[in-house]
């Protein structure tokens, strides 16, 4: 049920139900929440791009964007405005329908996945009881957008990029899924809010599950980086080989959708990691447990940003893998380790060795 008893939405909620019939109010509320999420994550995506550029600059002993606004804070806003005002070009023989559909596919799936995350105790749009399953299912759809985009562009580089993305995502989906299942063994529930409730009493899951949880976390980070098609797994858009990969033929706002979706996907992977391993919006050692006014969403965001920083650290350190190395890593290393790890986790829970 679409109910968010946030303080601010509570007022709006009551007001809407007082002026409209119940159905209309419900639909209006849904629309309002959708717009709020869209706006929030457009801005979040833009600032993640800025963060990426800043972090990249610091890793390379540069300064990064620092001209537009204080410390370059409006740089990505300006970039987005530029992209908005640009012409939407396409080549002659594109499949027009699929070509225009692809960016929306990518951005919509990443936005759907965001709806189930508990950003704080109250701030969760859709507390579904199969949350983890829903996340795995939805986050896999994004690759269809990439495949459609690459296919309909009628460009061999875009095509190769999209096919590589398909290979990569299908392979690494297994590792993401299995490492999540390892943690689900520990929690015994798929509902994200309940997973966090379990961590409130017993400590964060990475502490409860100790060794297998840490291994699962490492595998999840590697496979998650591969899922978002980021370096060192960015074969999809390997600049030196494929131009820009699957979005070679896209311009203007359609390109910006792909670009934003990449960063929102990174946010999603980091959020899953935070919820499943680091206690979601729970404060470390319960230091703000008793403080009612403290915004718990802050803890969630801090943890997510740390994980995102880790992914950026990967990106600006490691060289890109070859396609055979990529598949070797998945099928010969991550997958067997993951399966063994799953059994180890089961044994540990059976013998009651969890903390």
């Amino acid at each position, binding site marked *: 049920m679409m109910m968010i008893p946030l303080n601010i939405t509570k007022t709006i909620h009551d007001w809407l139900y007082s002026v409209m019939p119940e159905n209309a109010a419900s639909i209006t509320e849904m629309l309002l929440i959708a717009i709020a999420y869209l706006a929030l994550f457009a801005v979040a995506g833009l600032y993640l791009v800025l963060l990426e550029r800043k*972090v990249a*600059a*610091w*890793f*390379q*002993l*540069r*300064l990064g964007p620092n001209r537009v606004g204080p410390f370059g804070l409006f740089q990505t806003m300006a970039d987005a405005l530029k992209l908005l005002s640009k012409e939407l070009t396409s080549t002659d023989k594109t499949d027009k329908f699929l070509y225009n559909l692809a960016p929306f596919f990518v951005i919509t799936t990443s936005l759907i996945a965001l709806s189930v995350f508990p950003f704080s105790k109250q701030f969760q749009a859709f507390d579904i009881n199969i949350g983890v399953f829903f996340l795995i299912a939805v986050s896999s759809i994004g690759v269809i957008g990439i495949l459609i985009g690459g296919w309909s562009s009628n460009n061999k580089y875009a095509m190769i990029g999209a096919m590589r993305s398909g290979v990569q995502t299908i392979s690494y989906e297994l590792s993401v899924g299995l490492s999540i299942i390892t943690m689900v063994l520990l929690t015994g529930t798929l509902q994200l809010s309940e997973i966090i409730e379990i961590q409130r009493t017993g400590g964060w899951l990475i502490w409860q599950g100790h060794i297998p949880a840490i291994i699962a976390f490492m595998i999840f980070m590697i496979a998650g980086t591969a899922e978002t098609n980021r370096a060192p797994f960015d074969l999809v858009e390997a600049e030196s080989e494929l131009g820009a990969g699957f979005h070679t033929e896209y311009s203007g706002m359609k390109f910006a959708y792909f670009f934003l979706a990449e960063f929102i996907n990174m946010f999603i992977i980091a959020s899953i990691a935070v919820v499943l391993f680091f206690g979601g919006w729970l404060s470390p050692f319960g230091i703000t447990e008793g403080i009612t006014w403290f915004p718990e969403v802050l803890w969630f965001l801090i943890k997510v940003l740390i994980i995102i920083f880790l992914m950026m*650290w*990967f990106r*600006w*350190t*490691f060289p890109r893998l070859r396609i055979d190395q990529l598949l070797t890593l998945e099928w010969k*290393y991550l997958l067997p*380790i993951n399966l063994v790890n799953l059994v180890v986790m089961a044994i540990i829970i059976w013998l009651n060795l969890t903390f």
Partner: protein
Amino acid sequence: MSYFSDIYNGIKTLLTGMSVTGKYFIHARKGSLTQQYPDNRETLKMFDRFRGEVVMPHDENNEHRCTGCQKCEIACPNGTIEIIWDRGIDEETGKKKKKIDKHIYHLGMCTMCGLCIEACPTDAIVWAQNYENSVYDRTKLSKVLNQPGSKVKAGIED
């Protein structure tokens, strides 16, 4: 079993790489290499090996070291240097002697290869480190390197 040692070595080398970039990240605020060019115009100094343009240094008596041997003109692969010379009578010995009238340098044609400077036997021309060489009219790119009224330093030809 190289399988497990491969994993171990892989993780070890990855962590080594991350520690290297991590150190860079921490020191980035102090050791940034970026030059914010138009802002630091006054203080920005190019390194010694930078090839801005060819100049002919003159000392305080308005004397240069160019004997007019034309080796630089011959060495230049694209005719950037043009020397207008003349024979004048040397006051001390009374003999006829070659001396330069104008040492013309076309910056617009120069590829900064440095062959002229290598060829010069008396080190009369050197690299300057200036870099703001853009002008509105390309005739301004042709420069006379020897200053008006200058003459060759005594004892250079010996």
